[in-house]
C-alpha cells in the first residue's frame, strides 16, 4: 500500500469501519513504515475520539415531552378524521351503484306489471301500504294483477348497499316519499326534483332495516 492508497482508507481505519482484514493489515503496515501517514492516522483517530465525545455528551438529548403530547393529539385527530371520512364516500359509491343498477335494469326492459298492494287500513291519512313477502323472494316482482284491477308498473327491486343478507320474513312497504328521501338510501337525486313525491316499495327486514327498493310508476 502506498501513501495515496493509505489516505483513501485512513478514516475508515480510524473509525474502525468495515475494512477487509487484508486492507486493514496493509494499511497498518504502511503506517508503521511511513511517519507522515502514521501522524495522519493518529490525527484521524483523535478526530474520531472527539466526535464520539460529542456524540456521548449529546447521547441523552431528546425532544421535550411537549412534542409527544402534540403528536398524540394529532394522532387521535387523524384517527377520528379517518373514521369519519369514508361515510360520504360510501354514500357516493352507493348512489353511483344504485344509479347504474337502475339504468341497467331499465335498459334491459325488466319492467313488470304488478298488483296494486292492499291499501293500508290502519292509519288514516297514511301513505304507507304493507304487504307480506316470503323469504327469498324479496327481490322478485309481485304476482300478476287479477283481471280488472288497477295496474301499475314498477322496476325490479334494487338491493340497497351495505345491508347484510336478509334473514327471516320480510315485508314490502309502499311509501309515498319525496325524492330527496331516496338520497338517504344512496339513490341519486337532483336538486331540481328533490321535492317531488314519488311512490316506492321497500323490502323491509324484521328488524326494520330496508333491504331493497323499487320505484312504482
Amino acid at each position, binding site marked *: 500500500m502506498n501513501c495515496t492508497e493509505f489516505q483513501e482508507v485512513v478514516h475508515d481505519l480510524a473509525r474502525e469501519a468495515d475494512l477487509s482484514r487484508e486492507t486493514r493489515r496493509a494499511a497498518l503496515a504502511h503506517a508503521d513504515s511511513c511517519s*507522515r501517514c502514521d501522524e495522519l492516522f493518529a*490525527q484521524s483517530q483523535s*478526530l474520531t*475520539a472527539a466526535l464520539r465525545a460529542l456524540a456521548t*455528551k449529546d447521547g441523552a438529548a431528546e425532544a421535550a415531552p411537549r412534542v409527544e403530547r402534540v*403528536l398524540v393529539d394529532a394522532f387521535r385527530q387523524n384517527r377520528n378524521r379517518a373514521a369519519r371520512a369514508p361515510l360520504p364516500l360510501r354514500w357516493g359509491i352507493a348512489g353511483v351503484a344504485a344509479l347504474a343498477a337502475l339504468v341497467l335494469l331499465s335498459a334491459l326492459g325488466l319492467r313488470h306489471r304488478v298488483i296494486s298492494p292492499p291499501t293500508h287500513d290502519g292509519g288514516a291519512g297514511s301513505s304507507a301500504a304493507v304487504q307480506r313477502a316470503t323469504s327469498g323472494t324479496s327481490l322478485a316482482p309481485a304476482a300478476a294483477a287479477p283481471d280488472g284491477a288497477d295496474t301499475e308498473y314498477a322496476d325490479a327491486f334494487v338491493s340497497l348497499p351495505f345491508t347484510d343478507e336478509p334473514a327471516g320474513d320480510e315485508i314490502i312497504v309502499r311509501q309515498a316519499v319525496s325524492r330527496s328521501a331516496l338520497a338517504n338510501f344512496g339513490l341519486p337525486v337532483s336538486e331540481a326534483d328533490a321535492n317531488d313525491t314519488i311512490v316506492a316499495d321497500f323490502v323491509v327486514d324484521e328488524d326494520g332495516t330496508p333491504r331493497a327498493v323499487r320505484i312504482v310508476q
Partner: protein
Amino acid sequence: MLLYRRWQGPIYRFALHMSGNGSIAEDVTQEVFMSLIREGSRFDPELGSISAYLFGIARNQVRKRYDRDRHLVPLPESAVGASEGKPANGNGTHPQLIVAPVDLSRGETIARVREAVLSLPEHYREVAALCDLQEMSYEEAALALNCAVGTVRSRLHRARALLAEKLAERQTPEAKLAAGGVKR
C-alpha cells in the same frame, strides 16, 4: 408511540447536530413524526429501514429550515466548492498535514467540535452527523440521504479532512504548543 419513543432521540440529535439549535431540532422531530402520522402509508419496508425513512424525512425538514433560516448556519467561504470523492491532496503526495491531536481533557473541546461540525457545508455535515455521530453504516446513510454508498463514503472522508483542519485552526496557541505541532 412506540416508534416515537424509539426514534425521537436519534432524530432529535441528528437535527441538533445539523442545526445547532434545540428549538429547531424539536420542530424537526415533531414534523418528522407528523409526516409519519399523515403519510405513513408511503413507507415501504422493501425499500429501506424505518430509520432510513425517518432520517430521510428529518434531513429534508432540516434542509427546509436551512433554506428558510439560512443565516443561522453560515457557510464558510473556504468550504464552498470543495471537491468530493478525493483525498484532501491526492496523487500520491501527502495532504497538508495538521498534527494537532484533540485534547479531550479540555472542557471546551466538545464545544469546538460542535462548532466545527456546524461550520461544515450541509452535504458534508449530514454524513458526519449520520455516520460519525449517529454511528450509521454507509449503507443506512445512503438510504437516508438517497444517494450512493460511494458518495457517502467520499463525502465523509472530505468532511473529516475539513473537520481536522477546522479543529486545528480553532486551537489556542497554547493548545497547539501543548499538542506539539502546527501545520507542517
